[in-house]
């Protein structure tokens, strides 16, 4: 039985529980001739909640933990001898998991029965070819021990899933029966179900925290295993980025960091003045009619997906810059370059900065403007000498948020900046960024235990720390700024 079938069964049980709970409440009230404390619907609701919520939570937790627990128990059974020289246990386990999956598919295909499978031996059957038929491609032949482990893995997994299904159903029925049994006319069913719902509401608000914990946890965990394989000093201080999939890679972050900062700098140098000027123009000069159209238009523009800009960089801006500027000036012959990615990213950031700055400029009180106009200042003098200084903290906050977006932007640089990691000053050279390398190290067929793959997590961690710092600083500044005028 698949998890989704179990979910449907539990939800069905909950619906039945609702009806039963209602009826029972009405009946007991009638029999005892007393008034119900709560409406009958609340009795039904509390029964349904007791059936569905604990069971579904159990299911979710089980689904989450089962692979981990099985893996740790099974992986202990692989003898050290079965692990190839220089390889890692987790790498073997990765194969085991895939083989187990393949075996499942073979059985599901109906060609091989469970008994045949138990007899399947790696030295007799060509397991690799067999698995390839069901779409599980393996890098090498399957050793007997690995196949044995895979079978054990599969067997444990099947048993565990069976136990899981039973446990979930028992929990659903058990809680349901208990909730049903305690229905009395005087039962405060409304309070019970409201407390229950309040707990659910609170739980939902924890999802945000859990997400952050998940991000930090996964980044840290994998980064630590990366730094166990590759010295941290090399990673942070080396100026060479040269991954080799046969080992002996040089994985210095500096060229990537340089590319990231260079592209972001070009983008911000374009977007900040333009975005700010647009916000000023709309807030201080444009009529209210223009404003009423321009505001939503800018919001929509800020929502254009970055893949659109990426394509623009790839098919239009890149070739244009190469043919009209870089080549005539002898600056390079690559259509992907820091300039391409930077300019397009700048265009992407303009509406973002305009939108934020517009809010900030508008929150400067009108009294400031009046004070300045009353002294005979012109509009531009008022803007430059009164409004902008007053709005400065907010604008700095917007700038930091934009910088954080520029650093974390992926698609535009993947499609516009190129992939060659180098420390160069020429903006018409192709360079690469942290995000580009995260994508390139984590896509394609990569072994999940090599430093070349795990370096992506260390890059991700660096990126996360950078942007987190910028975001927190920006949020803090903007918050302080808002308080100033409230």
């Amino acid at each position, binding site marked *: 039985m698949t998890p989704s079938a179990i979910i449907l069964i539990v939800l069905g049980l909950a619906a039945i529980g609702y009806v039963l709970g209602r009826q029972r409440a009405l009946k007991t009230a009638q029999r005892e001739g007393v008034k119900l404390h709560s409406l009958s619907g609340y009795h039904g609701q509390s029964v349904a909640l007791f059936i569905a919520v604990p069971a579904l939570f159990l299911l979710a937790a089980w689904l989450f933990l089962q692979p981990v627990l099985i893996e740790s128990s099974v992986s202990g059974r692989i003898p050290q001898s079965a692990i190839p020289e220089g390889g890692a246990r987790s790498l073997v386990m990765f194969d085991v998991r895939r083989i187990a999956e393949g075996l499942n598919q073979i059985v599901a295909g109906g060609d091989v029965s469970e008994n045949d499978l138990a007899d399947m031996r790696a030295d007799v059957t060509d397991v690799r070819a067999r698995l390839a038929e069901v779409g599980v491609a393996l890098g090498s032949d399957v050793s007997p021990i690995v196949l044995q482990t895979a079978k054990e893995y599969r067997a444990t997994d099947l048993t565990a899933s069976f136990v899981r299904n039973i446990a979930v159903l028992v929990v659903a029925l058990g809680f349901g029966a208990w909730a049903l049994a305690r229905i009395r006319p005087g039962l405060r069913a409304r309070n019970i179900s409201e407390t229950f719902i309040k707990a659910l509401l609170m739980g939902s608000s924890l999802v945000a925290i859990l997400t952050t914990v998940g991000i930090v946890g996964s980044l840290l965990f994998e980064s630590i295993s990366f730094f166990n394989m590759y010295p941290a000093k090399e990673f942070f201080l080396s100026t060479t980025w040269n991954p080799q999939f046969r080992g002996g890679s040089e994985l210095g972050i500096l060229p990537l960091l340089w590319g990231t900062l260079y592209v972001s700098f070009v983008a911000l140098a374009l977007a900040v003045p333009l975005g700010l000027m647009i916000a000023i123009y709309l807030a201080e000069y444009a009529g209210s009619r223009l404003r009423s159209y321009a505001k939503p238009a800018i919001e929509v523009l800020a929502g254009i997906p970055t893949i659109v800009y990426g394509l623009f960089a790839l098919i239009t801006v890149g070739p244009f810059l190469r043919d009209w500027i870089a080549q005539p000036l002898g600056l390079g012959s690559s259509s992907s370059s820091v300039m391409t990615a930077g300019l397009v990213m700048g265009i992407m950031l303009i509406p973002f900065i305009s939108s934020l700055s517009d809010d900030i400029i508008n929150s400067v009180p009108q*009294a400031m403007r009046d004070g300045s106009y*009353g002294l005979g200042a012109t509009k531009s003098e008022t803007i430059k000498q009164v409004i902008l*200084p007053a709005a400065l903290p907010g604008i700095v906050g917007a700038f930091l948020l934009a910088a954080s977006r520029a650093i974390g932007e992926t698609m535009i640089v993947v499609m516009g900046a190129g992939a060659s990691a180098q420390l160069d000053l020429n903006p018409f050279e192709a360079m690469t960024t942290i995000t580009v390398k995260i994508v390139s190290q984590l896509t394609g067929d990569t072994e999940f235990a090599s430093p070349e793959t795990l370096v992506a997590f260390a890059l991700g961690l660096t990126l996360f720390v950078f942007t987190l710092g910028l975001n927190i600083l920006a949020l803090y500044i903007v918050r302080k700024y808002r308080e100033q005028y409230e």
Partner: protein
Amino acid sequence: MTEAATEMAVDTAIKESAIKMRGTDVSVFYGEKQALFDVNLDVARNSVTALIGPSGCGKSTFLRCLNRMNDTIDICRVTGEITLEGENIYDPKIDVVELRARVGMVFQKPNPFPKSIYENVAYGPRIHGLTNSRAELDEIVESSLRKAAIWEEVKDRLHEPGTGLSGGQQQRLCIARAIAVSPEVILMDEPCSALDPIATAKVEELIDELRGNFTIVIVTHSMQQAARVSQRTAMFHLGKLVEEGVTDKMFTNPETKLTQDYITGRFG
């Protein structure tokens, strides 16, 4: 009131030569709505003119017409004529920036810029290019702050933010800021409404002193204030000028019943 005031206004009418500003048939519209109806009012030189009336009567609107602050509101339209020294300030050829340099304004709520006290006062002279050197600027700042009777309180912290002052100090700073441009007329829109009684007394005292050098028009909600600081008073009601004349006479022997009712607190 002082002798100067009574001297200048022996009669209820102002002498032609003493007229600083004159409004003729001034009407103001906010979109479709008319806020001011054919107001004719003269402002005498080197005196304080108080504009009184219940809220929404148009007194602030009229005040803002005197230095064209209404220009900043898109839907606002002004008809009629207002002159400064005989020149129509609504003439399209007039430069509103120059006008506002000569007709300054102090607002209801103190609105110091988020800059230092010094910079607040220096802002006007700077944009108008009144000085050539730092020393001259220092001099203007000091004399303006002195005239606004706040120098002693702030001379040791000129470079602290103006927003850190108390409400009354902020308002006097704003007055200093207006004085620093050396305008001929200062318009004050309920300058004391956001202040406590002690701060109010200080500002009123200041207004009386400034009268020697400036022509002042003040909008006020408080009858007592009008009586204390002004030489002439104009009473507005529902966008119309009801009555105007020498303050003492207005408060002792008003011509219209409406004014009398307002002054005695029957409405408003």
